[in-house]
């Protein structure tokens, strides 16, 4: 069978700003700095970029960024909805543009001052979820008003069913912070966490989410350049092919407030996504060397591991406790420390870590060579060597 055109694309460049709690720069400058780093990483110049992709939630206008970078002309722009669940969809949008011929080199960017500026995790952040508390609605006015609460609500019934405790969640956080402790880019570089410290941290949403179950809020920017597989072979970096890039949204699904469908419908959604990853790439998600799982809050790692079939339903607790996701484990997860340990650039920095592992450039480089990486959230990728 001939490969899907979408999979004849590659990630040619990645770039980031420093990550901090107070950048002291505008969001547009963060976007421009990260973008330039990604373009140069690929061995390209701004004149080579002819498409742009970002999130609907990003406040940086494409044309403002174009002007800042000195890009002579754009032929393609698009944005993904769904917040961080759309992070991997940016790659799909860019790959679709390249493989269809609509654009030749697409710049993906995400940049914000979500710590020093608008606190992203707060109900009053207006972070694209609606006008918190300003008019009556089915969630905010009932105090169901933050992303942390939405994950807690989703996870409560699961935790009851499978006997998962806060301590079980803490074991994942300890492994994430261990990865972060040896990543100089990470907010928690040289700051590992003990299970006791996790258990002593305050509740954010009782009885599921403690302080250390939450991702960071970060000031920073991250960017990626996508082009064709053929062109990537002639560029500066080892080729990272996009073997699969997909989204899946079952009927009655909602982003953040996913309270209106059955567990069976959610399971079917996860299964179909796995089938699509297999159809595009020829491999199943659990056949990868490592995984980057969307980790805004610890519950999303648990559910992500099981949705992608890296372990069975209800088995994430044992999978994590046995050390599979940590250093030296059989399925290393979030080797940069993830969104909890490195930075929260809405998932884009987790894609970048996957790229670095394939190139052999990660601060926590896995030994023996990384050929296939799963990047998973509400959208998903399989990246790898050509």
């Amino acid at each position, binding site marked *: 069978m001939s490969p899907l055109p979408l999979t004849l694309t590659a990630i040619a460049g990645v770039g980031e700003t420093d990550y901090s709690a107070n950048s002291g720069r505008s969001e547009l400058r963060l976007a421009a700095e990260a973008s330039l780093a990604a373009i140069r990483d690929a061995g390209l110049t701004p004149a080579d970029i002819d498409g742009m992709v970002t999130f609907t939630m990003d406040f940086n206008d494409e044309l403002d960024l174009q002007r800042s970078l000195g890009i002579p002309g754009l032929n393609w722009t698009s944005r993904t909805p769904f917040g961080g669940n759309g992070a991997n969809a940016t790659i799909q949008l860019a790959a679709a543009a390249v493989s269809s011929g609509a654009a030749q080199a697409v710049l993906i960017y995400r940049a914000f001052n979500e710590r020093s500026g608008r606190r992203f995790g707060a109900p009053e952040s207006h972070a694209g979820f609606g006008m918190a508390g300003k008019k009556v609605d089915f969630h905010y006015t*009932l105090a169901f008003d933050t992303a942390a609460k939405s994950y807690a*609500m989703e996870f*409560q*019934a699961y935790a009851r069913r499978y006997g998962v405790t806060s301590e079980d969640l803490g074991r994942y956080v300890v492994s994430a912070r261990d990865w972060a402790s040896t990543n100089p880019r990470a907010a928690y570089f040289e700051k590992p966490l003990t299970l006791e410290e996790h258990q002593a941290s305050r*509740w954010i949403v*009782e009885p599921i989410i403690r302080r250390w179950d939450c991702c960071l809020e970060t000031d920073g920017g991250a960017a990626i350049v996508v082009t064709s597989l053929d062109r990537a072979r002639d560029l500066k970096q080892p080729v990272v092919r996009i073997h699969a890039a997909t989204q899946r949204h079952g009927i*009655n699904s909602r982003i953040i407030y996913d*309270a209106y469908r059955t567990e069976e419908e959610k399971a079917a959604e996860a299964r179909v996504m796995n089938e699509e990853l297999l159809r595009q790439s020829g491999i199943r998600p659990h056949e990868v060397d490592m995984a980057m799982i969307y980790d805004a809050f610890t519950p999303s790692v648990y559910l992500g591991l099981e949705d992608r079939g890296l372990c069975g339903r209800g088995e994430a607790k044992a999978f994590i406790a046995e050390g599979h996701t940590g250093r030296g484990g059989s399925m290393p997860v979030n080797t940069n420390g993830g969104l909890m340990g490195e930075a929260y650039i809405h998932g884009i920095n987790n894609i970048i870590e996957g790229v670095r592992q394939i190139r052999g450039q990660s601060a926590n480089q896995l030994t023996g060579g990384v050929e296939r990486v799963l990047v998973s959230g509400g959208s998903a990728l399989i990246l790898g060597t050509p």
Partner: protein
Amino acid sequence: MRDEDVFWEGAAQGRLLVQKCADCGLFRHPPAPMCSRCQSVNVEVVECSGKAKVLSWLLSKHPTRPDDSPRMVVRLQLAEGTYLVANLQGVGLEDMEVGMPVEIFFEEINGFPLPQCRLAREVAA
């Protein structure tokens, strides 16, 4: 106008109003302009019994700022089959159970008539 206006007009009168397709009979919530099963735009508004069961919950209490009225937020399934997010009054975290039967009422909170619930006096069938 918004599709959800009908729910809040009912709420102001203490009535739990949910949309039902006038052609195929499918209940839907939150309100939507078209039936996802038969694509009809003909809709009835049905007053529900208020009987429901608890599927999941969280205690909403701000972690660092004093919060004098922590609220229990619950995900419910109505006896009519659709789902609803509401607040549960009079039950502490330690007494929460999956499947707990509740009855829905409306109460004004922060200026809005909001769906609240309490433990059902009798177990729903």
